[in-house]
C-alpha cells in the first residue's frame, strides 16, 4: 500500500512538475503553433492527472471530468485555435517576447512567492498536497503573467486557458474535482469564452488589421 501510494505520488509529482514546466515554456515560446501545441500538451497532462485520480478513487464523475478535459482542452480548443490562426492568416507572425530571461526570472520568483504564501497554511495535511497547490497557484499566476508579457491576442486565449488549467488542477488535487454540475457549467463557459475570443479576433482583425493588443489603446485618459 505504502509503495503504491508512493508511486501515485511520484506520478502526480511528475505531472505537476511537467505542467509547471510547460507554463514556463509558454512564456517564451516564439511561434504561435508551438504555443498552441504546448498548451495542448499541458491539457493532456491535466487529463492524465484526472484519469489517474479517477482510477485511484474509483469515482465515476472523475472519469467524466477527464473526458471533458480531453475533449475540450486537448482537442477542441487547440483545434479551434488552429482554425483561427489559419483563418486570420497570422501563423507567420513572430511573437518574440522582449526580455525572455527577465520574464523567466520573474516567473521563477513567482513560484517561490506562491510557495511562501501556501506554506504557512496549516490545513494542507501532507507536504505533497502543499506542493501541488503551490504548482496550481503558480500556474494560475503564470497564465496571468503570460497575458501581461505577451502582445499577441492569440496568446491571450492561451494565457486564460493556462489559468483555467491551473484552476482545474488545483480543484482536482485538493478537492478531488468540483461537483458535476459546476464542472459542466465551467466547461460550458469556457467553450463560450473561446468562441467569443474567436469572434473578437475577427473583429480586431477587421478593425485594426493586426493582432497586437498594444495597438488597442485608443481609449485612454492621459490624452484628454
Amino acid at each position, binding site marked *: 500500500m505504502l509503495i503504491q501510494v508512493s508511486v501515485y505520488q511520484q506520478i502526480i509529482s511528475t505531472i505537476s512538475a511537467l505542467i509547471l514546466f510547460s507554463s514556463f515554456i509558454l512564456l517564451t515560446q516564439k511561434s504561435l503553433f508551438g504555443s498552441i501545441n504546448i498548451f495542448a500538451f499541458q491539457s493532456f497532462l491535466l487529463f492524465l492527472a484526472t484519469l489517474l485520480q479517477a482510477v485511484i478513487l474509483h469515482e465515476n464523475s472523475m472519469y467524466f471530468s477527464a473526458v471533458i478535459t480531453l475533449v475540450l482542452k486537448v482537442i477542441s480548443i487547440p483545434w479551434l485555435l488552429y482554425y483561427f490562426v489559419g483563418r486570420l492568416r497570422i501563423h507567420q507572425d513572430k511573437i518574440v517576447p522582449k526580455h525572455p530571461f527577465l520574464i523567466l526570472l520573474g516567473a521563477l520568483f513567482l513560484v517561490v512567492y506562491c510557495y511562501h504564501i501556501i506554506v*504557512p497554511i496549516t490545513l494542507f495535511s501532507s507536504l505533497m498536497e502543499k506542493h501541488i497547490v503551490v504548482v496550481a497557484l503558480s500556474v*494560475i499566476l503564470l497564465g496571468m503573467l503570460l*497575458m501581461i508579457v505577451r502582445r499577441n491576442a492569440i496568446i491571450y486565449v492561451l494565457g486564460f486557458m493556462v489559468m483555467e488549467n491551473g484552476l482545474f488542477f488545483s480543484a482536482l488535487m485538493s478537492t478531488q474535482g468540483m461537483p458535476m454540475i459546476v464542472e459542466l457549467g465551467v466547461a460550458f463557459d469556457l467553450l463560450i469564452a473561446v468562441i467569443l475570443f474567436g469572434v473578437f479576433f475577427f*473583429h480586431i482583425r477587421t478593425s485594426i488589421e493586426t493582432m497586437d*493588443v498594444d495597438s488597442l489603446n485608443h481609449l485612454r485618459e492621459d490624452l484628454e
Partner: protein
Amino acid sequence: MIFNLMLFFPCLGIIFFILFGHYRMAGMMNICFSFLTFLASVGLGVNTVLSSGGSLLFWNNQFYVDAFSLCLIILTTFISFTVAIFSRQYMLNNLDENRINARMLQFYFIMYQAFTLTMLLVYTSNNIGILWISVEGATLATALLVSLYRTPESIEAAWKYFILCIVGIALALFGTLCVYFSAKNVSINISGAMLWTVLHQHAAILNSQLLMLAFIFLLVGYGTKIGLVPFHFWLPDAHSESPAPMSALLSGLLLNIGLYALVRFKMLIDPNLGTHLIGILMMAFGLISFLFAGFTIFRKRNIKRMFSYSSIEHMGLITFAFGLGGPLASFVGLFYMIIHSLVKSAIFMSLGNVIQLTKSKDMGEIKGLLQSYPSVGWTLLIGTIAIVGFPPFGIFNSEVMLVIATLKQYLFIVPIIIIGLLLSLGGIMYNLNPVFFGQSTDDVSSLKVCLFPIVLNLSIALYFGLHIPHGFMNYLNQATSLIAGRGILS
C-alpha cells in the same frame, strides 16, 4: 412554481428571439418578457415574505432565496424591465439610422434575455460554483453587446472588458475553490460543500487561513466586476462605448453582482475570522476607488465616461459601507445599492437620448440641453442631481446615513468621504454646466425618444428619498439582519 416561472420567462425569451428576433416587434416582446419576469419576481417576493422562515429553497437546495437576494432580484427584474422599455425605441432608432442591422438587433435581444437570466441565477443560486458560472455567464452575455456598433473603439472596449473580467473571474474561481476545499476538509459531503446554506452552518469550523486566502482572490476577482480601483479599467471603456441601454444595464445591474457575491462571502467568512480584516480590506478598496474616481471625473470630455467614473465612485462607497459592517452601514449599503441602480440606469438611459439627439458624446459639443431639448435635458439634470447626492432623492439619505455610520467607528475617514463627495459633485457639475446651461445650437433633431422609464426610475428614487414604506423597510431590515447579524430596527 413562481420561481420556476421567473427563470422560465427569460429562457423562453431567448428561444423566442432566436426564432423571431429579427422582426421589428421584437422590442415589444422584449418588454413583455421582461415584464413577465418582473411580475414573477414580485410574486416570488410575496411568496418569500409569506413563508415562515423568510427564505425559500428550490430545486433540491440548489437555489435559495432570502431577503437579501430578493431585494436584488426584484431590482434586477425591474430595471431590466424599464431598460427594455427604453431599448425598444432606442434600438429602433439605431436600426433606422443604419447603425445596426436586424441580425444585430436579434442578437441584442437574445443576449438581453440571457443577461437577465444569468443575473437571476447569480442571485438565486445557492451554490457558490453556480454563482461563479453565472457571473462569468453575465460577462460573456454582455461582452459582445458592448461592441454592438462594431466601431474600432467599441471593439477595443469590449476586448478590454472581456479580458479583464474573465481573468478577474478566473481568480475568483480559485477563491471559490479554496472555500470549497476548506469545507470539504471538515467533512461536509460533496453535494453540500458548495451550498451557502450548508457552508453557513459550518462557518465556524472552516480553516481561517484558507478562507483569508480565498477572500483575497475573491476580492480581486469579483472586485473587477464591481469596478474597484485598480481593477476598474474596463469599466469606463465598456460603459462609454456600448449602446445606452447596455450601459444602463452594466452600471445598474452588472456591477451589483460582484458586490453581492463579495458580501455573501463576507457574511460567511467574517464570523469565522472573528476579526474585521475583511471589512477593512473592503473599506480600503472602496475608499481608494471612491477617491480615485472623484479625482478622475474632473478631466473628462466624454459624457458617458464621466458617469461611468461616477459609477466607480458610488460602487466604491457602497463597498465601503458593506466593509464597515454593523447594522446601519449594511443597511445603507443595501439601500444605496438599490437607489444607485435606479438612478444610474436612468442617467445612462437619458445619456442615450442625449447622444442620439445630439450625435455626440463630447461634452464640448453638447451644449444648452435645457433649451434645445428641455424634457431630455431636465430628466438628465434631475438624474444628475440625484446622483451627486442632493435631496429629495435616496442617494442623499444613504450618504447621510453612511457618514453617521462611519463616524461611529472611523472618524478619520469622514473627511475623506467629504472630500470625495465634493470632488465628484465638482467634477460632474463642472463638466455638465455648459451641457445643460450653455448656448445651444440651432439645429434641433426631431428624433423620437423614450422618457417614461427614466421618469419611472427617478420617481422611485425620489419616493424612497422621501419615505420608505413600512413593509419595504421591514424587508430591508430582514436583509440587514442577514448581512450584519442584527437588524436596524430594534
